[in-house]
Structures are given as structure tokens and as C-alpha cells.
């Protein structure tokens, strides 16, 4: 019964979150003015960017549903490479919204045991979350650092602090579904829920650090004992 309720509310929250980009795309399409080519180009770029994000979210949700089938192969992954891919992918979106993302690699090219696609989604969701909760001209920080047994990937934003109850759920690894649409208002926490499920599949841990002026979300990835042969 409890899981039915969780599933139903999860579907409701996911549907609500997916409505926002669709409504925005509709509005952008209605705003296209053939007599103004420069503006039309701008709106087309926005349409592509918003639809890309929405598609990624739908794909991630489909992956969450398939995690139990264990279809995602684990392999040694160069985390820096995946970070580079994500930051390149999001470069336009950050610039377009007058934000920036600073990357700091403080690890020595260690490999993590992960699924490349799932790791990509985790980093992407963290970065989009930081984008969402940063003000104009603010810089979010993506940091990669070595710990003894794991590699920590952390994305710091400067938005509202994470509410205590959600923080505790994350700390206890107990985020079982997207949460109320007002937990960190304007977001259902869907991205965080997706990241948590992907991390759990990869035997990695998602956590958060509350700051007075924002939040850092991190994932601790198990280190691969294989050499750096697979760096590419």
C-alpha cells in the first residue's frame, strides 16, 4: 500500500515537473515571429535547449524504471572525462542564462567503478540543479577530489539552503521518491531522486552539505583498482 502511494505521488510529481518545459516550449513556439529572423533564431535555440533537457529527464526516468533489470554495465570510468562531456554539453545553457560553471579537478586521474551513462546523468542533474538555484552572474562550482577509498564529485550552488528534512533523508539514504513540489520550491527534487537511484545502483553514495548561502550535492564513487589504461 505504502509503495503504491509512493509510486502514485512520484508519478504526479514527475508529471508536474515535466509539464513546465512543455508549457515553456509551447510559449516559445507561439512567440516565433517570421518577420524577425534574429529573434526567431534565439527562440529556436531556446526551444532546442529546453527540449533537450526535457528529453534527458524522460530518458533518466525510463532508466530508473529499468534499474532493477541490471542492464547497466559497470566499468572503470575516467570521471574527469565524463565531467568534461557534461560541462561541454551545458556550456551553452549556463552562458545563455548568464551563469557560469567553474570546474576544479583536484584528483589524480583515478578511475571510478561506474556506469558511464548513469554517471553522466548524475553530474548533469547536479549541474542543472545548481543552474536553477543560482542567480544571474553567479558561478557554480564542480569539484572532483580524491579521498582514500572513493572519488568525490561535488557541485556547489548558491541558492536557498536545503530544508532540514530533505537533508536528513539524503543523509540517511532514504530519498525514496520525488518529494513535495515545494521542498525547494519550483523543484520536485526529481533530479536529485534520479541521481540518488543511479548512485545506489552503482554502489555510490549521494550526499549534501548545507551552507549558509547554498548547498553542495556530492556523490562518492568507488575507486577502480585497475590502471589508467582505460582513461580514454
Amino acid at each position: 500500500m505504502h509503495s503504491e502511494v509512493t509510486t502514485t505521488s512520484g508519478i504526479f510529481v514527475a508529471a508536474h515537473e515535466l509539464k513546465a518545459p512543455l508549457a515553456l516550449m509551447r510559449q516559445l513556439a507561439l512567440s516565433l515571429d517570421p518577420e524577425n529572423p534574429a529573434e526567431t533564431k534565439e527562440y529556436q535555440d531556446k526551444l532546442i535547449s529546453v527540449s533537450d533537457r526535457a528529453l534527458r529527464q524522460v530518458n533518466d526516468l525510463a532508466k530508473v524504471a529499468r534499474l532493477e533489470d541490471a542492464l547497466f554495465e559497470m566499468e572503470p570510468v575516467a570521471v574527469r572525462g565524463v565531467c568534461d562531456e557534461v560541462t561541454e554539453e551545458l556550456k551553452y545553457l549556463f552562458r545563455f542564462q548568464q551563469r557560469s560553471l567553474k570546474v576544479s579537478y583536484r584528483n589524480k586521474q583515478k578511475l571510478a567503478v561506474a556506469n558511464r551513462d548513469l554517471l553522466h546523468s548524475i553530474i548533469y542533474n547536479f549541474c542543472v540543479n545548481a543552474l536553477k538555484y543560482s542567480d544571474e552572474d553567479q558561478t557554480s562550482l564542480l569539484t572532483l577530489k580524491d579521498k582514500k577509498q572513493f572519488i568525490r564529485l561535488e557541485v556547489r550552488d548558491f541558492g536557498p539552503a536545503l530544508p532540514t528534512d530533505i537533508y536528513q533523508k539524503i543523509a540517511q539514504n532514504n530519498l525514496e521518491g520525488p518529494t513535495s513540489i515545494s521542498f525547494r520550491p519550483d523543484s520536485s527534487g526529481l533530479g536529485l531522486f534520479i541521481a540518488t537511484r543511479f548512485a545506489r545502483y552503482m554502489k555510490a553514495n549521494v550526499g549534501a552539505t548545507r551552507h549558509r548561502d547554498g548547498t553542495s550535492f556530492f556523490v562518492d564513487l568507488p575507486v577502480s583498482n585497475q590502471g589508467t589504461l582505460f582513461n580514454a
Partner: protein
Amino acid sequence: MPNPPKTIYIIDDDELFADCIKSAIKKHDKSIAIKTFKNALDAMNSLDDLPDLILLDILLPGPDGFTFLNELASYPDTAKIPVVLVTSLALPEADLSIYNIQGILNKEKMKPTEVIEYVKRFSR
């Protein structure tokens, strides 16, 4: 023919959506001053300068749209400011009669021209 409103506030945390509305209003009349706010708190702090129309989303970071409406209703001068809700929430208009809400635009169905209708109606 009435003059257009001088100042319009758009309160919406979705900046791209707010930009669409702003652009539609600017196309209608470039002289209208439009201020956009990502949260209700910043908008509340700007209310010394009374706008002629407020376009308000409900789900906002921090205090939500209803908190903002309560704040508006608390003072005689701000209570008179016409407000149009721009939201994807289903809201029964009758329950909102204590506020000066002039209309509700559903984000999933609205057209830029509908915003302009309100801009024209509340011109002075």
C-alpha cells in the same frame, strides 16, 4: 484611447517563461517598463514603486504566490493593484475573491495575445 500601463511586474521563477511574456508585452508597447522577479520576496521589497499590473506565478522559491497576495491585500494601496495569475496550477477563481485577481492564465493553454488583452484592459 487609454494610455498603456507604465509599469508591469512579472513574478515568475522560470526566467525563460518570464522572458516570453516580457517580449510579448514589449512588442505590444515598447514604452512599458517591465520588472521581472524570480521570487516574491524581491517583488515585495519593490512595492514602494506601485506597478499598474502584476503577472504572478504561484509556485515560487521562498514565499509563494499566495503569501505575496496576502501581503498585497494587507495594505490599502497595494490591495488595489490588479493581479493576473499565470500558473499551471488549477485554481478555482471563486476562492480568490478576497484578492484583486483580474484573471487566471493557464501556462499550458495561454497565448501571448491573452497577456496583451490584460495589459490593454488595465491601461490608464
